[in-house]
């Protein structure tokens, strides 16, 4: 019965989404200069740290990043000690113990970030039926990637004349269908960055997007670094193969 209701709700939501999407297409998100773009892109270490803070203090109440492990943070410049301390701040479930019971213990670097809700039903129940998605792969799982995410986080505003957001939904011009269940999450001064950066909504959004881009592709820096070397190698080899081909065929022409 419950499942059926969810199915109906989901189907209705999907239909509403389609209807509105073709009625008013979302504008393309503005392009930003991301530190991790380009052939030599790397994650801006300071931005990842600020973004991590924004995630922890703002997003983590509703959204998990369950595929990211604490130890992964060492890939973007956190020290082993820092990672241990960060992990120890959260409680993770473990067990069963000798009495056969599950128990909570402080996190370890090997643990993955715990999610705020035990399961999707609990997430829906706590959020008016809209389940906050896990953010582990968000920049890969949306068209427009990081640009879209940043545009969405800062895309709230008054709906245009003649349009009224449905109850429990907010107007956001970049969201497909323009109505989103998540209230505008970022407000100026909501967090205090230890590095003294001013916590404007724009800044927080850029930083948390960088953090989530890292969460989605922790291998990105390895990939691009290796890619440059491999491509140079293959291009040189191809040049040599061309010379060989020409040399061999020269006897024919």
């Amino acid at each position, binding site marked *: 019965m419950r499942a059926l209701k969810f199915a109906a709700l989901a189907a209705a939501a999907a239909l509403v989404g389609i209807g509105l999407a073709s009625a008013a297409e979302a504008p393309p998100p503005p392009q930003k200069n991301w530190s991790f773009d380009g052939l030599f892109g790397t994650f801006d270490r300071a931005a990842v740290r600020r973004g991590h803070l924004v995630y922890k203090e703002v997003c983590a109440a509703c959204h998990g990043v369950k595929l990211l*492990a604490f*130890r992964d943070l060492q890939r973007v410049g956190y020290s082993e000690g820092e990672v241990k301390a960060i992990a120890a701040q959260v409680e993770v479930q473990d067990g069963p113990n000798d009495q056969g019971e599950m128990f909570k213990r402080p996190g370890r670097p*090997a643990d993955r970030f715990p999610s705020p809700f035990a399961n999707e039903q609990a997430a829906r129940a706590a959020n008016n039926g809209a389940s906050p998605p896990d953010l582990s792969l968000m920049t890969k799982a949306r068209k427009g990637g990081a640009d879209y995410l940043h545009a969405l986080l800062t895309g709230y505003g008054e709906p245009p004349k003649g349009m009224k957001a449905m109850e429990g939904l907010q107007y956001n011009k970049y969201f497909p269908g323009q109505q989103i269940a998540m209230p505008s999450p970022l407000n100026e001064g909501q967090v205090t960055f230890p590095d003294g950066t001013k916590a404007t909504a724009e800044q927080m959004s850029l930083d948390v997007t960088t953090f989530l881009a890292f969460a989605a592709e922790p291998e990105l820096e390895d990939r691009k670094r290796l890619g440059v070397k491999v491509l140079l190698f*293959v291009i040189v*080899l191809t040049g*040599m*193969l061309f*010379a*060989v081909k020409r040399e*061999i065929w020269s006897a024919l022409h």
Partner: protein
Amino acid sequence: MTATATTAGPLDDGKSRRDFLLIATSTVGAVGTALAVWPLVDSMNPAADVLALASTEVDLSAIQQGQSITVVWRGKPVFVRHRTAAEIKAAEATALSELIDPQPDKARVKKPQWLVMVGVCTHLGCIPLGQKANDLKGDYGGWFCPCHGSHYDTAGRIRKGPAPQNLAVPDYQFLSDTVIRIG
């Protein structure tokens, strides 16, 4: 990326420029192919999450003297034994010259009453008996491997049988008097 042909076959007219080009290209191609194989080979090594899950904590407070428990660490059994005074004495009194793999008892324990070791026979990887009170314990009152008859003493040292080494002692530390962390 495969190596190019090294022989020019019927066209081989001994031109050194061509020979150099062919050999150089073949070499670069062969090196590239070899390097390309490495990621495939390396992918079979332990993955990052496996390497990260390397430590286990054990609460010792419930283990009575003369009792042993088996905990799982990195997928292998670890024997934790609360040794009796007699066992400690037997282990300490053994002369090094009697041992196949000479090692004094104090090199195998951090506190004499607690013996912690990986419960995998150093012969061919079976799990020795001796953890339960009614198990066979071998000729030296410690552990006995049923697969090929290796006898271990009360310090887990090999005394008789085909095993070449003492039972391995893992890296561990006392977090408090009653808690150890292995790994």
